[in-house]
């Protein structure tokens, strides 16, 4: 088990290096040398200074090495546009809001999606089941900007007197309700479908029949034998869901004017603040890659069969 965990952690390192390299090369390609662009007229002297400051006078592999070193020590470098701010400052300012939004949305998805899937699976082919699956299908297909707009239209404007929810911002719990629902609805639909499927499959298993044959109570059969085996596959959904949440947060933060990473990313692209764009991209990639690693390890802990096969 320990070998498996260490192996998985070690394997993550070259992947991280490769993804950073990809990002780095892509950014270099746009960037070239930002200070030679005609937009900002600077004297050759200042330019040389700036180039030194941003290591642009060094060959690309050295720049890459320095950048990786920076990432490893949690230093994403300075911002190109905001001269006295580092990317770290920007992350520190904006990331907690995105993290909170993502976490709450995930919580919403888990708390409502899993029970929905479980109940649908326990009453297959009933009106409830069909309703839940229709909801799930629709929830996954409707673009989040429409959901967000509709939520604002109804709960902040049309019935604003009743609910009193603000249309934008990220201050106070009232302002967080609509964005969390708008972002969490898709993952919730996904969870409901996934859990329903794995549940139905698990209920057919011989070992569930064994558990019943032992005279265990319906509750224990469900909680110990069915639910655990049904939810293990749901754990592996965390990877794609995280990607989904990150993508979704770009839209949701944009619509609700939440000063998070997603909104700032768009701002940075428009402002051509490429060191920020690159820093944030690397940050998001690292989060996903590390989350995948944790999911794999968790899966190994939860399902004893995979442990040995994979070491």
């Amino acid at each position, binding site marked *: 088990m320990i070998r498996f965990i260490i192996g998985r952690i070690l394997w993550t390192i070259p*992947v991280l290096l*490769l*993804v950073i390299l990809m*990002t780095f090369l*892509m*950014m270099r390609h*746009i960037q070239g040398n930002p200070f030679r662009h005609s937009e900002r007229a600077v004297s050759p002297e200042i330019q040389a200074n700036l180039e030194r400051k941003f290591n642009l006078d060094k060959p690309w592999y050295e720049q890459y090495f320095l950048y990786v070193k920076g990432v490893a020590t949690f230093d994403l470098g300075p911002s190109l546009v905001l001269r006295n701010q580092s990317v770290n400052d920007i992350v520190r300012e904006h990331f907690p809001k995105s993290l909170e939004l993502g976490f709450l949305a995930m919580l919403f998805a888990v708390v409502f999606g899993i029970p929905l899937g479980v109940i649908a699976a326990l009453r297959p082919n009933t009106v409830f089941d069909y309703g839940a699956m229709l909801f799930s*299908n*629709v929830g*996954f*297909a*409707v*673009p989040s*900007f*429409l959901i967000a*707009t509709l939520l604002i*239209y109804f709960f902040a*404007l049309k019935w604003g007197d009743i609910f009193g929810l603000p249309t934008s911002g990220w201050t106070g719990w009232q302002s967080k309700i609509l964005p969390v629902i708008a972002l969490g609805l898709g993952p919730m639909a996904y969870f409901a*479908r*996934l859990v*329903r*499927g*794995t*549940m*139905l*499959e698990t209920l*057919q298993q011989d070992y569930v029949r064994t558990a019943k044959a032992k005279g265990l109570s319906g509750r224990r059969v469900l909680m110990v034998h069915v639910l655990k085996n049904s939810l293990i*596959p749901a754990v*592996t959904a965390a*990877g*794609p869901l*995280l*990607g*989904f949440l*990150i*993508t979704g947060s*770009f*839209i949701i933060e*944009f*619509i609700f004017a939440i000063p998070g990473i997603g909104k700032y*990313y*768009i701002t940075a*692209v428009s402002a051509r603040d*490429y060191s920020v*764009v690159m820093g944030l*991209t690397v940050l*998001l*990639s690292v989060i*996903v*890659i590390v989350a*995948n*690693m944790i*999911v*794999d390890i968790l*899966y*190994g802990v939860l*399902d004893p069969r*995979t442990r040995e*096969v*994979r070491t």
Partner: protein
Amino acid sequence: MVVSPQDQRMRSPDPAHSGDIQVAGAGTPIRQSSLWRDAKRRYVRNKGAVVAGAIFLIILAYCIIVPIVSPYDPDEVNFQDRFLPASLAHPFGTDAFGRDLFTRVALGGRISIMIGFAATFVILVIGLTYGSISGFVGGWLDNAMMRFLDALYGLPYLPFAIITLAIIGGTPTKWTMVLALSIASWFTAARIVRGQIITLKQNDYVRAATAVGARWYRVLARHLVPNTLGVLIIAIFLELPGVILGEAFLSFIGLGINPPAASWGSMAQEGRDVYRTHPSLILIPSLMIATLVLCANFIADGLRDALDPRTKET
């Protein structure tokens, strides 16, 4: 065989879906008309998939035909006709510039669907290449290539799409959008292809071909790749929703297709400015996207029943 948690992820979210036991799709050579006939029969039995397929075709027909026969110039600004409500002359009403929405939504659909299919195609080409190399060569290379994919699984495509657009520079066009949307979205397709190739490799007719001395490229080109056709067709409709939504997201946040050119995403963005007074302007393009995505999901489901019955447990 290595059982990885990712194999689990690859399954449809709805594996225990009722179904019949069928002849294997992957195990049989595809040069049999009966296989396709069986597939059609199984597809037709899935009512949801049939209805979804019909709606999908209707939307396609609408997008192709309406701009040709429409009496309105989709770009002509006419301020007297601003925000007209739906009527016989304008089934969807008109927008902030007095343009006929029925025509414009069809035009936007052309762009959205075109980008969707083109990007899906690129994704499948990359996925087919990566997946068949990994699956065919096997051994440590397969292991390394797959673990690489494992690690990248779920990498958000939006930042990479945005960077790609920035590299190319200028105003995004259809083609730059296609490239941007496919660059970080091919992981799933690669994994599907690889799984299929590995299954096929264990088949007797492939072994027989190798045993009688067929060259590797012949085995690959003649036996393996053609038999991935089934899963590739399914993959088209699995990938399409993501790409169409991706295009819409990019255009919606203003980094994709820009006015006056129209896609459903950019139209939704324009509609968003006036949603308090004229909600139909954001509703119509958004619902078109939702309908198309929903149909694609149901079609993928039906195709899975039809072409690859073994992927779901009975």
